[in-house]
């Protein structure tokens, strides 16, 4: 742990103040402090629950300057190894913030670009992607319902997969009512390994039936639109 520096202002006595005041330029340059982190956490805590709830998260996001649906939040949750979407416990908070070495908003802001950049690393991205599924699952379910799945997928894959829009289109008109973990994982694998023209897709590739049907649908879709002379 970095050495603690003495601070001149009292932070513990004003739990309701905006977190911006917690971090002055001075402390932004100082090392990581668990205590400060905890205080920061308590700022968003809901009641005496001991964890940050949806309201707290909303405030947190506002302070951070991002919408709650931003992918950064997912990355953060991943680093925290958070269990439930919409809730952070103290332990999770500490875990994640310690990893990032952030105990106040400013430090976190500085890390923004780093966090975004980390998604370019395929390993990190894959882990975040996979984490997102379990994170979004409601208790006891084995699959995400279609709208949730599509929303989550949009967050993660829109712009990173050329066939993404077509896949969503397919999903929406299909009879599948949800996505289970195996399908979720394989969608990502598919997006990484299969070329946009599907030339290296093979039927014996042990892809889930969902993806086999997507390929079929897409090929029909292609021939239909090419007949009409519309460019995709």
């Amino acid at each position, binding site marked *: 742990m970095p050495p603690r520096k003495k601070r001149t202002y009292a932070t513990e006595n004003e739990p309701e103040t905006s977190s911006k005041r917690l971090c002055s330029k001075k402390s932004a340059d100082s090392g990581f402090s668990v205590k400060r982190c905890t205080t920061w956490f308590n700022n968003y805590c809901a009641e005496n629950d001991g964890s940050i709830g949806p309201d707290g998260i909303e405030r947190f996001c506002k302070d951070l300057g991002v919408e709650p649906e931003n992918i950064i939040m997912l990355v953060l949750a991943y680093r925290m190894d958070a269990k439930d979407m919409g809730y952070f416990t103290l332990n999770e908070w500490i875990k994640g913030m310690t990893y990032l070495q952030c105990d106040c908003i400013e430090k976190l802001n500085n890390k923004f670009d780093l966090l975004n950049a980390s998604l370019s690393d395929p390993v990190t991205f894959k882990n975040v992607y996979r984490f997102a599924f379990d994170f979004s699952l409601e208790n006891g379910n*084995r*699959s995400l319902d279609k709208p949730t799945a599509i929303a989550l997928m949009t967050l993660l894959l829109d712009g990173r997969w050329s066939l993404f829009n077509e896949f969503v289109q397919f999903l929406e008109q299909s009879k599948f009512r949800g996505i*289970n*973990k*195996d*399908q979720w994982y*394989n969608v990502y*694998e598919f997006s990484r390994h299969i070329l946009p023209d599907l030339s290296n897709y093979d039927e*014996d*590739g*042990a892809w*889930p*039936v969902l993806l*086999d049907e997507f390929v079929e649908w897409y090929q029909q879709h292609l021939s239909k639109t090419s007949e009409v002379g519309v460019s995709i």
Partner: protein
Amino acid sequence: MSGISKGGKKDTKMRIRAFPITMDEKYVNNIWALLKNAIQEIQKKNNSGLSFEELYRNAYTMVLHKHGEKLYTGLREVVTEHLINKVRVEVVDALRNNFLQVLNSAWNDHQTSMVMIRDILMYMDRVYVQQNNVENVYNLGLMIFRDQIIRFPLVHSHLRDTLLTMVAKERKGEVVDRGSVKNACKMLMILGIDSRSVYEEDFEKPFLIQSAEFYRLESEKFLAENSASVYIKKVEARILEEAERATHYLDKSTEEPIVKVLEDELIRKHMKTIVEMENSGVVHMLKNNKSEDLACMYKLFCRVPDGLRTMCDCISAYLREQGKALVTEDDNGTNAITFIQSLLDLKDRFDHFLHESFSNDRLFKQMISSDFEHFINLNPRSPEYLSLFIDDRLRKGVKGMSEQEIENVLDKSMVLFRFLQEKDVFERYYKQHLAKRLLLNKSVSDDSEKNMISKLKTECGCQFTSKLEGMFKDMTVSNTIMEEFKHHLQQSVTNLNGVELYVRVLTTGFWPFQSSLSKCNMPSAPNMAFEAFRRFYLGKHSGRQLSLQPQHGSADLHATFFGIKRANTGPMDLVDEGAASSSGKSLRRHIIQVSTYHMVILMLFNKKESWSYDEIKNETDIPERDLMRALQSLALGKITQRVLSKDPKTKDIEASHMFTVNDQFTSKLFRVKIQSVATKGDTEPERNETRNKVDEDRKHEIEAAIVRIMKARKRLQHNVLVAEVTEQLKARFLPSPVVIKKRIEGLIEREYLSRTAEDRKIYTYVA
């Protein structure tokens, strides 16, 4: 010449001691001149004046004194000169005139003289020839003859042409001098010395080429003019002819190549044409049962590679077409019995051909099997129909068939069973039909039933038949229990109120019924009787549960019909004798044989005269569909079946319609059986239901197979897993790879399997 002393003892050979005296040139030349002269005399056929012994001795001397070479060379010259200047001239002269005879006699003369010459020069053969590795005398003579006479261009070509022309003539049917051809061929064979190369090059090769051409033309002509069967017979005849020709006057070794040429030209090149000939080819033969013609064709086509395959393909196409026509559903509705019977007949027909014409050839056998397998599975109802067919055969009252005949039919049905891909569908239907047979007591004999089951067991193993056997056991056990029950009744003097009860106890797992979803309100009399039985049974077997199955079972009811409508019509069967007799002849009594549901409904009319549909429904609690059916058969069937009347007299049934006893009911029979409206075989919705159940079962079987395999193998690649599953299940049905994949995904979701991290195509078993 110095003296040559003879050897000591007299024996068969002359032993002459070697004499180491050298000879001078002149002496040698003299000897040679002598020999030369002798040779020439021999060649002129003037050998009578020669002394064999003297000549031999001279030759011997020469060789002995190392002049073998001179002798050899000289011999060669003499022979060559003779052949060129004398013999060849003669032969050439005779080119247009008795050529073969002249040639032949020249050859014979040559052979004779060479033999004699060889005899004289035998010592040279033994010693000089051996030591110097040159041809012996006789062979030398052959070679010279060959080179100077036979291979002389004029002779060579003329000989060949002559021979070929003669063969051609004979083929056209003319008579030719076979002897001279034979001699010529023999000569050529001998001239090859240790090989047949002379014969082959000078005669056989051009012969084969000519023959090929000849038969090429002939085949085209024949084909154009003749039907397939006639053509085949002609081909057979030609083959025999050529074989005989080779044996008799060509060289025997030519038989094989010439037959091959024929086979090639006459058969192989026209296989398809022959087979597919309109109105006479294979299809025609099959249609008209020409087993003999087919047998001829088979024998003939055996000779060429792919000949049988060509036949087989054509037959297969025809068979598939026939089969397909048989299994395609008629718009008028398909009768299961005729469906299966026609398939059996087709199989019989083709087995007959297999036996009579194709001598049980394995290729044809396999073709028939695979074709049957192909088209029988084109119709998804085949398993159901097969079960119905067998059901029909096993029922009572199949007249005119002995045990043996029934056995045969069942065996043949088993053959069709083997072709079915969806054996699990068959199993389901067979269970249903067997249950009906057993419960309605319709089997023709228990033995036939058990026989059939053991056949199925041999085919499919115990799992298939264990439940069927269970059903049988239940029947036997029920009989025993009824005996005991009767005994019990007598002993305990229990009164069943005049109800004669017969109970069959069925073990739930064995029988294909839905366990009682259907409850209904039993009338009191049968209900009490049943309760008596229940008490008895549970007394013997505690811990079991008995539930009455009202959708099965039957009842015989005593029914009294009053002809005229009277003001106070009493309930049906409680009228006392007095009142009955006073109403006179219009009173009719019958015994009605009905189903349980019918009984429940009819007995209502003991309480009240008329009932509405709704009231009946509420009172009996019979499920709607069954109630409809029951009322239809009671009130809306044939006139001779209408025990009830409905008001209004429409064809449909609505909640408010009223039912009363049809007192006008008449029948010629005392015992009237009320038919159920049920159809034989499944209706459309029933079929779908069965199909759904089958699909459900299959899902479980596939998953069980997957888990079993993965548990044993721990890690498997996707394709291998799919292949293994298919292999394990194919005895019951053919699962599609897509369905298997879906089941794998289901198992992944439920965490029985997972994909390995390194390769998503490999699954591992999750313990």
